[in-house]
């Protein structure tokens, strides 16, 4: 492992002609006559940085050989991912070397794009921004660190507070409930300390809370500790996490809150759990929802609910979680609250849900995305309240349901500036397109929205020279924009690196490993990849809130099925659909590659006369999609699940024209308390067409056919032989 972080700085900061990169000096075969001092031909060196493939901010090590970054690994000192990295982190290099990258700034004039210089692009922007003032907006994905500081300062300088933060895969409702009931939106969730994880659709090994590797490392401890942890997953469609459950239970979408109330009822009446931490209204509501009535309303059997309650009562440390299928209904807040009540009743707060403490650099903390901002943005644009909008790290034109009217709303925005590595549906509507450097070419600091017990700031440093001279990182774009607004204040920073370097210098002395040398401390921080942050004590306090009833919305005989737009670890919300490794990696449940499909329970399919491979039409009130059916028992019979991520109309050679985008046909119903888009509330009807298609998937057999490939043994046997 490399020990001298400064090499990273030299690598990026140097303006010398490159004699290192073979590709640039093809005719210059003498390059090794003058190798730069940190290059040993044939020897790979690892540099620390931070992954930005999702918002987790995992620490990485990138292997660099002859000036090229080749392979990403996890950084062992990062408490988030402990040396591990998920498939999206692995595929980061493909985004970096992607053949469809934007290489030059472009301006749209009379409908066609023209290449321009950065100066021209900035001049065009400045012309509009100066007049727009408070009508300037930023539309981004989750953002943290010094990029967020600069973004806030940019809006501040213009007197605007229009920062819309959008993530399709978010935990906004859970965080709102957590904030209201526990006083902390992101407490530490200790799966590793739990004996039972009762997960209502929380795909924590996949897309939930956007920290898959962190939760997977916790999961490993959960399964191997003395009292082997048990995972119960209740959800409408099996997620990656559901695939690892000890007990997987299908739930009727929107019914999870009631099931939680029935569990609470059973825990109080049969197992005499203490209700002093709950408000009288909440206890009264629980009393109304006895097992029998909930069983009737939800279709889950009374026996199953009783079994679940017995399990929860028996296990010592329980953690109840709620994910997107629960959050994404009109009753999402009430349902997640009911699930949080289980944590209160079972004494989990303080045991499996711990205080993360207060992060001392609030300005660097993550601003996590939600879907409500997508709707608020569209409203503001429709009302002509936005004149200039900057887009970064989010693709709203792809993600917004048709019924939201995003494209029409954008026509009301005078100037749309997209900062992006790739052309996508949003850049296709932009007036100015700014080519972004890849995360392996850029500087930055990142704070994951979910932190481990040890809080950290992730350091992102370039691992190689820019592939395309005319790309800029987000930090540099922000800095340039700030110089337009406040030259006196920001003129001193030559580039974003200089800004970050200055920011580090002004950190408290306790963050400098070498008090005598700021330079040395900086190099150590870069070599390490993360800055450990000491939080201050901020205990959780359970608030006695009045729970409201998580009512199930009425059935619709015209549209009898529930549409589940499921997220995938891999393509994520569609942002990674252009990475061929991730397209070729089979979906973890259906094993399908390079396509979209609709998951149906075989019993439902039988009723509708649908067979695997039939092209079916899925219609909601807002539109329809046609795609092939895949029959899987891992789906509730009232559900049709279509994974999101495909159906791009504009996203380069690998993603364009592949599959369908289920987000397009979603209804714009909202969660009643938080205003979040109720993504799981859309009702659909399904009909068969006369077409068929081959389901291209990995493996031909779904069963082991009696052969001993994966053997499953009961936990009692392992307790005896291994003492766990």
């Amino acid at each position, binding site marked *: 492992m490399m020990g001298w972080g400064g090499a990273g700085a030299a690598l990026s900061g140097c303006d010398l002609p490159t004699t290192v990169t073979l590709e640039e000096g093809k005719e210059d075969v003498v390059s090794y006559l003058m190798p730069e001092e940190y290059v040993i031909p044939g020897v790979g060196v690892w540099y620390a940085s931070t992954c930005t493939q999702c918002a987790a901010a995992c620490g990485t090590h990138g292997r660099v050989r002859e000036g090229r970054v080749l392979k990403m690994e996890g950084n062992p000192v990062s408490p988030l991912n402990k040396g591990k990295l998920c498939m999206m982190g692995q595929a980061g290099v493909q985004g970096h070397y992607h053949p469809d990258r934007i290489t030059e700034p472009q301006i749209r004039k009379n409908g066609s794009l023209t290449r321009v210089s950065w100066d021209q692009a900035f001049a065009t922007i400045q012309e509009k921004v100066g007049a727009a003032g408070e009508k300037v907006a930023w539309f981004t994905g989750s953002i943290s660190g010094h990029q967020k500081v600069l973004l806030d300062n940019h809006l501040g300088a213009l007197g605007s507070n229009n920062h819309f933060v959008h993530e399709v895969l978010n935990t906004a409702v859970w965080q709102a409930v957590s904030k209201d009931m526990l006083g902390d939106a992101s407490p530490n969730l200790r799966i590793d300390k739990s004996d039972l994880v009762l997960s209502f659709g929380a795909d924590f090994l996949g897309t939930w809370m956007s920290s898959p590797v962190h939760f997977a490392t916790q999961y490993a401890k959960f399964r191997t500790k003395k009292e082997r942890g048990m995972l119960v997953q209740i959800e409408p469609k099996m997620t990656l996490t559901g695939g*690892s459950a000890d007990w997987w239970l299908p739930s009727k979408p929107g019914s999870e809150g009631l099931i939680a109330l029935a569990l609470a009822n059973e825990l109080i009446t049969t197992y005499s759990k203490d209700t002093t931490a709950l408000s009288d209204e909440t206890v009264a509501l629980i009393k109304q929802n006895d097992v029998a009535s909930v069983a009737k309303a939800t279709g889950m059997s009374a026996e199953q609910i009783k079994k679940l309650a017995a399990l929860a009562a028996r296990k010592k440390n329980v953690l109840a979680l709620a994910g997107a299928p629960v959050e994404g209904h009109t009753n999402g807040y009430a349902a997640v609250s009911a699930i949080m009540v289980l944590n209160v009743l079972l004494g989990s707060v303080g045991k499996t849900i711990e205080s993360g403490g207060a992060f001392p650099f609030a300005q660097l903390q993550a601003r996590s995305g939600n879907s409500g901002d997508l709707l608020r943005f569209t409203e503001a644009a429709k009302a002509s309240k936005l004149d200039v909008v900057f887009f970064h790290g989010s693709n709203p034109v792809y993600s917004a349901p048709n019924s939201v009217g995003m494209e029409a709303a954008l026509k009301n925005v005078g100037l749309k500036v997209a900062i992006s590595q790739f052309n996508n549906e949003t850049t296709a509507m932009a007036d100015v397109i700014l080519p972004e450097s890849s995360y392996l070419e850029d500087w930055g600091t990142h704070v994951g929205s979910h932190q481990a017990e040890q809080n950290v700031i992730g350091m992102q440093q370039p691992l190689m020279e820019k592939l395309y001279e005319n790309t800029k990182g987000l930090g540099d774009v922000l800095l340039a924009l700030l110089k337009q607004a406040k030259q006196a204040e920001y003129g001193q920073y030559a580039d974003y690196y200089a800004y970050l370097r200055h920011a580090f210098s002004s950190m408290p002395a306790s963050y400098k490993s070498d008090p005598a040398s700021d330079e040395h401390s900086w190099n150590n921080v870069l070599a390490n990849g993360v800055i450990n942050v000491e939080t201050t004590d901020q205990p959780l306090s359970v608030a006695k809130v009045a729970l409201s009833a998580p009512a199930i919305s009425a059935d619709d005989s015209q549209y009898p099925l529930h549409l589940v737009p499921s997220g995938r670890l891999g393509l994520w919300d569609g942002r990674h659909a252009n990475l061929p490794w991730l397209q070729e990696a089979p979906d973890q449940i259906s094993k399908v590659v390079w396509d979209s499909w609709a998951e149906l329970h075989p019993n439902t399919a039988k009723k509708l006369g649908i067979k695997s491979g039939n092209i079916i039409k899925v219609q909601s009130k807002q539109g329809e999609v046609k795609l092939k059916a895949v029959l899987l028992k891992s789906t509730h019979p009232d559900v049709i699940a279509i994974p999101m991520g495909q159906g791009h109309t504009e996203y380069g050679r690998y993603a364009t024209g592949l599959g369908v985008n289920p987000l397009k046909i979603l209804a714009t119903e909202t969660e009643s308390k938080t205003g979040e888009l109720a993504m799981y509330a859309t009702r659909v009807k399904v009909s068969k067409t006369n077409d068929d298609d081959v389901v291209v998937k990995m493996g031909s057999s779904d069963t082991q056919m009696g052969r001993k*490939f994966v053997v499953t043994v009961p936990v009692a046997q392992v307790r005896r032989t291994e003492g766990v």
Partner: protein
Amino acid sequence: MSLSNVLNNWSEFRKGAEEGGHHKYEHKWAMAINLDLCIGCNACSTACYAENNLAVVGKERFEKGQAMHWLRVERYWDQSEKEFPEQGASYLPMMCQQCNSATCEPVCPVAATYHTPDGLNAQVYNRCIGSRYCSNNCPFRVRYFNFYSYYESSWPEPLHMQLNPDLTVRDKGVMEKCTFCIQRIRTAKDKAKMEDRKVIDGEFQTACAQACPTSAIVFGDSMDENSQVSQLWKKHEVKMGLYKQNKTEPQKRGYRIFEELNVDPSIMYLERVREEA
């Protein structure tokens, strides 16, 4: 050569290293994969694509079974009699098992696949003539044939700059498969030799083991008694060189797939555990 001589040599060959068998290994690289920790997330297989210059073949060729995934994660549904898969999915990371008595080796007409002194089943690409007998004979279906020159389509510029220069890009007509990241083994051995020491357990890992978020995959040298992998094999009473294990505790979780075929795989799997409510 007398008949007894042949028979003696043969039975010696069929014995593993622990029983003083034929193989005079310098190292014996092996794995232990804990299926109770495998969550099926594909981190290992994607890491393998990144490390080993695996070609992306696209949908049409995938359909024809021509995908080049040296390491694939199988998903099986058990409990087929039930209405729902109540115990989740059964995931199985499947790659070359580096068999000590590999069925692919004796059928190669040109000895392109052979056994290394490290106990690996190696493939010599520039010796391979593409008969595909080896793949036909492999019970694990983990050998992948280059039906095309994938480099023409799989790495459009500048994607090719990601290619790992420590190993080749294979061309049409050549068989390939998991090597236990032999380039990493090579680097570690060279480094140890230069520093005049033995390879230390854990100083390097295969790409899959390094990526695995739950550390389900453990890689190491089974000749090193103290290595983590040796300890795991010992704990679960699985020995190489046998087609049937003699465990003092038969319910210990370690097992090898297709052990009964006497191929003597170098990968031990640990059974998946489930708790009934």
